């Protein structure tokens, strides 16, 4: 399948724009690039909105002056967790999802990998898609699952990309699995392994 065919793939996630929902409780997951979105949503939220909210913040150290983190801190949200990576923050997210009740809205904003992992975790907890909003900011680096060995490679920037588990050179498709929160990678040179296409940086 060629790249152009992939553009029509329905499983390619589409993201929206966060807006304050009518809910009993609001759970945010964001990284440095997504933190801005929470700050701007706060301007449109009713008074007291963040009293019944929780923010799981991934400080990726890309925002050298911590401007965004300061803005998020200033919201006065009583439950603010700060972790170094989305993977480090996932146990906290799972614990929060176990505690929250129906009538909670979950908001996820940040890199494509963060959106995928947080969405997968929320869906596993039984959250309905109607109770989840996403907005993409920052990196488009992909999580990729090798369809051959099933290993998942993170932070894939290039097309094609090498599977870090079995070493095959993979075409990164738009075909997306919500179950594993990863794009599918298919061996690009199975018939002639000596034909090695040049890697181009496309997912930045």
């Amino acid at each position, binding site marked *: 399948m060629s790249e152009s065919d992939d553009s029509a793939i329905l499983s390619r996630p589409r993201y929206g724009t966060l807006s304050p929902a*009518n809910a009993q409780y609001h759970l945010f997951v964001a990284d440095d690039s997504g933190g801005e979105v929470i700050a701007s949503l706060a301007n449109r939220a009713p008074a007291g909105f963040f009293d019944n909210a929780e923010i799981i913040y991934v400080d990726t150290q890309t925002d050298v002056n911590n401007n965004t983190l300061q803005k998020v801190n200033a919201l006065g949200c009583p439950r603010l967790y700060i972790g170094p990576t989305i993977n480090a923050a996932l146990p906290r997210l799972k614990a929060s999802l176990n505690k929250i*009740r*129906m*009538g909670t809205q979950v908001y996820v904003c940040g890199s494509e990998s963060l959106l995928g992992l947080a969405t997968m975790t929320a869906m596993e907890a*039984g959250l*309905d898609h109607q*109770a989840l909003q996403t907005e993409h900011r920052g990196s488009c680096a992909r999580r990729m699952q090798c369809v051959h060995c099933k290993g998942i490679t993170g932070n894939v920037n290039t097309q094609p990309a090498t599977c870090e588990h079995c070493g095959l050179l993979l075409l990164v498709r738009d075909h997306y699995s919500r179950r594993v929160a990863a794009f599918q990678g298919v061996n690009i040179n199975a018939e002639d392994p000596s034909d090695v296409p040049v890697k181009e940086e496309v997912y930045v």
Partner: protein
Amino acid sequence: MSGMATIDVVVSDVVTVNSLIKRFHFIRADGQPLPAFSGGAHIIIEMQDGDTLRRTPYSLMSSPLDTSDYQVSIRRDEEGRGGSLYMHNQVKNGMQMRIGRPANLFSLDKRAPKHLLLAGGIGITPFLAQIHQLVETNGSFELHYSARNEALCAYGAELAQRIGNRLHLYFDDQSQRIDFDTLLRTQPVGTHIYVCGPAPMIDHVLTRCEAMGWPDAHVHFEHFAKAPPGESFTIELKASNKRVVVGENQSILEAIEAAGVDAPYLCRGGACGQCETTVLECDGKLLHEDHWLEEDEKADGKKIMPCVSRFRGQRLVLDR
């Protein structure tokens, strides 16, 4: 008739449950097992009441794991159109009847980590079947069941035996009320809610769910609207080239069928959408009574659900 293939059955038992409710058991006339169904399914019972052929939906309450018979419990409704009175007064053990195949508009979402079941009065019936299924599959659930008093709380004692502390009973005469807001506020993520009972109870739960941020997909309800009586009127059926008078106690669908015109249906209670019919001309007012059409569709006046809705005016032409 195009609604569904019917099944010839024999009434194998009629049991008085309490002063208002009787339970009817049906077995297949040919002795074979009945079709499989899932909890929440209903059947249409055909009743030849003098010159009138009634077809009324009732929820199956027996276990989906046992298709040797079907059981329905019917509350006597003195003000209804006569279906329940016919069942209570005319139907006897051994009688031959016809029923439709089961259809389910109120099924459990099997993905749910927890099911919250809310029943009011005779609205308990679909839950009885669902609970058989949930117990068998080890599903997590709670039933909150409200009745006028203990004597009218059909199957309350049996449920207490079967499901123990998963049952919560509320009796009006002891001023016990289901605290809907507390229930809705305290459910774990992923819970699905199911409500069946009087219309005001359903409306209240739907309103509170929306206000409290429950996603629609997690909120299920079943309410078979009754075709209300009203003034008689005449309709024209374009495709069949017929004029049909709809009687005071007849639905448009019943009048169409009585005129020998094949019309689709499934629930006959304004819930399933199967009988949706295009309005070709309308000089008057459509009296919508269904839960199927959206508010803007009702206002548009291009569609009608002939199983429950009526008409007042000069001329109504349907594409049927």
